[in-house]
């Protein structure tokens, strides 16, 4: 069983020798080396997307603004993870760990938002009565809440 695990754990070639062969030009060390072109290309793409995101913010697309901004952020994050963090060439389990953690955060978010929406009708807008007293006396600038919705 441990043989199988060891096979799963190690990368493509070169599993047992302590000294790697020198035949693969740059790859004689530990694993794949990312090329200059890739690194600078991805870096440039990330900077470009940042500028685009900022520019889009000043354009009024209405409801779409947030999804667009988050969508571009998602693409940037994917590029960083795949290329800078080397997931493109790593064994897939590392990527699975990252994707899995994000999946659980999404799950958490879904359940919490569902819960919040469920209780929304029972919440009234504005400050709690005790807080209201304190605000009125000690904070001359605080906006006064509308308490007409108190049950």
């Amino acid at each position, binding site marked *: 069983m441990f043989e199988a695990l060891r096979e799963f754990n190690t990368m493509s070639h070169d*599993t047992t020798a302590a000294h790697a062969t020198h035949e693969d030009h740059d790859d004689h060390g530990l694993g794949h080396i990312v090329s200059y072109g890739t690194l600078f290309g991805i870096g440039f793409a990330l900077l470009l997307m940042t500028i685009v995101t900022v520019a889009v913010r000043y354009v009024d697309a209405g409801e779409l603004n947030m999804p667009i901004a988050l969508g571009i952020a998602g693409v940037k994050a994917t590029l960083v993870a795949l290329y800078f963090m080397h997931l493109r060439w790593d064994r897939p389990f590392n990527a699975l760990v990252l994707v899995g953690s994000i999946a659980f955060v999404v799950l958490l978010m879904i359940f919490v938002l569902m819960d919040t929406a469920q209780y929304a009708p029972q919440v009234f807008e504005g400050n709690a009565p005790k807080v209201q007293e304190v605000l009125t006396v000690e904070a001359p600038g605080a906006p006064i809440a509308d308490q007409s919705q108190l049950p």
Partner: protein
Amino acid sequence: MTSIQANPSDHADDQGHDDHGHGHDPNLAHHFESMEQQMDSGKLGMWLFLATEVLFFGGLFVAYAVLRARNPEVFSYASQYLDTIMGGINTCVLILSSLTMALAVRFAQQGRKGLLVLCLWLTMGGAVGFLVIKYFEYSHKIHDHLVWGGTFYEPVDESQKLLLETPEEALDTPLVTGPREANAAEARDIAMSQIVNRPEEAASSVKTAALGPAGLSAGPAAAEAAIEETESDGHSGAGHLADPEMPVGTHLFFGIYFCMTGLHGIHVVIGMGVIGWLIWRSQRGDFGPKYNTPVDLGGLYWHIVDLIWIFLFPLFYLIH
């Protein structure tokens, strides 16, 4: 990870073609079969830690989602107090530092020590630059009391306190300046309602008015002085408390803002410590094609810090 200190031999270099009498690379810990397996295990361990970091910030992102879903007008209003350009520059700084970090990993793999150390220093420079910009943002906000909790509702100084308590009619200029002049009537009403809610203070201000020109002019003049200091980003010196458009609960925005960006800033500081340690070890010559795992794993940490900021930036700075 343990490094094996064996008898040094004459032609030993740091990159382990010399087996030091043990038959393997001195950087290979005994419980691993090969350098490659050691590296793979290290990487997996690091990814598992990064998963906890994602969950750590994930919880805060969920809190953000709930707050924003329940109070969209608060986020819409408060976003004007955040400088999009500064945030954008910070994002670019972090992206560039990620690039130099990836380059550092590459140079470590190639055994080019000078360039490795240079790129690590550049990454550190990016971290410092990020924190400097953050410092300016934070100090500006803290000065204006754009912070979490009760402090948000406290006047910044005496002149602002005076301004907020002075009825609108006593001032030559409206309570709020700039694009909100159209709301001057509304501002007056709100100012008056503030007075009505606190009869004892209203009585004392009437008393000082009755004292004569000296008593009357001291209040409004000092209050007007507060209006005079209009800040470059368009807010009046009267501050957010005098703004009639400020929705209830705006302090929540700054609470979640400081919590998330502050936690991220702490991670940047920790990252600086990690990079500093890597610089020290790299300078010492510890890393090369045979062994560069710490640089690789430190790079992974730094990229996650960048990743988190990539999401924080649109959520706080790009709200329309």
